[in-house]
């Protein structure tokens, strides 16, 4: 089975959901014209990233009656969507979230688990952290979604892999940093190396959309990629350039790669569980 994935490497207007929704609908239209089956938008694509106190006013309730989701669900009738937004739950906690929409339904919402709150980042001040990482079924098979700092922790892609995800969908609003003699920023190189490693180690597809544009002094470097289960690059969108790039992946490659390299078959989950339990109990000792 072959599917066509569109990476919507776009800019956003900070805190202006209706303008960003218009941009989404226009890019979705372009993706349809390019015969894409799925469009992946960046982290917080409906709101912008450095929201601070704007998080509250930009937040959405993801359901059929919400005017923004209503439009997106309508658009998802014949193309699947992954969008980024601020998720306000019933008890008024605010999460950085991704929603997967397909055929007029919300199939899954992932709330960002790891909120970077160090150095230049201050997410933990404004957002609640998610508490789960679950794979889910789509018409293209089982997938898993993670958001930026989530995939700087190896445990979450690992859990999604064990939970059956054959396509990992990553989104980010990653500020570029680390200018040196190289033609790419060190942050761009680091993320790309990591994504390639996940694809190879988990013999799975890894599709990543990172945004472009600027907020205050921060630049977002784009450079969205798809890696295949061999760890080979399928597509890389140019850095710093807004684009809707479409690439085809062949899901049959999963069988070929995993036959050659049965890392999933050989993974010893119960041993991992046993050792994790031991490590956790040892860490809990007062003298640790």
């Amino acid at each position: 089975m072959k599917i066509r994935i569109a990476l919507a490497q776009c800019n956003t207007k900070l805190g202006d959901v209706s303008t960003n929704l218009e941009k989404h609908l226009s890019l979705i239209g372009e993706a349809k014209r390019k015969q894409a089956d799925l469009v992946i938008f960046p982290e917080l694509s409906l709101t912008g990233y450095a929201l601070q106190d704007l998080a509250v006013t930009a937040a959405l309730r993801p359901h059929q009656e919400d005017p923004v989701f209503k439009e997106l669900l309508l658009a998802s009738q014949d193309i699947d969507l992954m969008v980024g937004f601020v998720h306000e739950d019933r008890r008024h906690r605010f999460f950085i979230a991704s929603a997967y929409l397909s055929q007029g339904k919300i199939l899954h919402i992932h709330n960002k688990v790891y909120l970077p709150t160090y150095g230049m980042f201050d997410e933990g001040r404004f957002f609640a952290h998610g508490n789960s990482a679950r794979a889910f079924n789509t018409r293209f098979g089982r997938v898993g979604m993670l958001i930026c700092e989530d995939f700087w922790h190896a445990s979450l892609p690992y859990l999604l892999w064990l939970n059956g995800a054959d396509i990992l969908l990553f989104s980010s609003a990653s500020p570029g940093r680390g200018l040196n003699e190289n033609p790419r920023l060190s942050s761009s190189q680091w993320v790309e190396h990591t994504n390639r490693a996940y694809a190879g180690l988990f013999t799975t597809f890894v599709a990543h959309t990172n945004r472009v544009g600027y907020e205050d002094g921060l630049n977002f470097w784009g450079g969205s990629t798809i890696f295949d289960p061999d760890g080979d690059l399928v597509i890389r969108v140019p850095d710093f350039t807004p684009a809707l790039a479409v690439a085809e992946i062949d899901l049959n490659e999963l069988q070929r790669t995993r036959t050659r390299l049965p890392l999933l078959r050989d993974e010893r989950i119960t041993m991992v569980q046993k050792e994790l339990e031991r490590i956790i109990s040892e860490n809990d000792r007062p003298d640790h």
Partner: protein
Amino acid sequence: MIDLTINPQLAETILTGFIESELNRVGFSKTLLGLSGGLDSAVSLYLSAKALGPENVLAVCMPYKTSPQNTLDDAQTMIDDLGVQSLTIEITDMVDPLINRFEDMTKLRAGNIMARMRMIVLYDQSVAFNGLVMGTSNKTEMLLGYSTVFGDAAAALQPIGDLYKTQVRQLARHLGVPDKVLEKAPSADLWDGQTDEGELGFTYAEVDKLLYLLVDQRYRPEDCVEEGFEKAFIDKVMGLMRRNHFKRVMPPIAKLSQRTIGYDFLYPRDWGT
């Protein structure tokens, strides 16, 4: 090894994008800056011209009566090279009444008066030209506090504020800044014969390496001694950084209410754009 080499093409891509984005998102397409004939304003000028087109950039030369002719000539060379708009407004008549009013006037005070007068001229022209004032401060001078608060430090955006002086020079070469500007001893041009390195007491080449370790690489002062820096030099640089930190932050607001600007009223500058 301490390597301050930058990829100048990558820096140009990011910084021209930054200039264009930060101006356009608030409804501006033009910028202006004070062009001294020195390296920093040259780099800001070349970046601005590349980002916005030379017709949208106004270079304002603001000499004082002691400003050396060769720096004015260098500024004119760059204006001609890029085809940017230009204006010369001599500040002597504006600042001399204040400078001459006090018998105990010092070089430092006079230099600050000149820097602040240039700021007034630029901000006045920004309304006439309908453009935003482009900053020209580099990371070295910001960290050392080698600037006049509300003077040359005043600007709408700072494109080269995260590049050390030695990195600004690499970018300047890439952008095509004339050799005579590249080779000139850095000077704030506040009095005749002044050079930055003479006044600071160390070279940019030395201090940039130390700042890179202390700031970018988070070395402790004692780690820098191990790397071969003199303790007295480290202490001097740390002292300048600490004493001048007030120039890098907004003045503190005394908190009284439940929600106070800067503490718990937090919005990005690019709010809604």
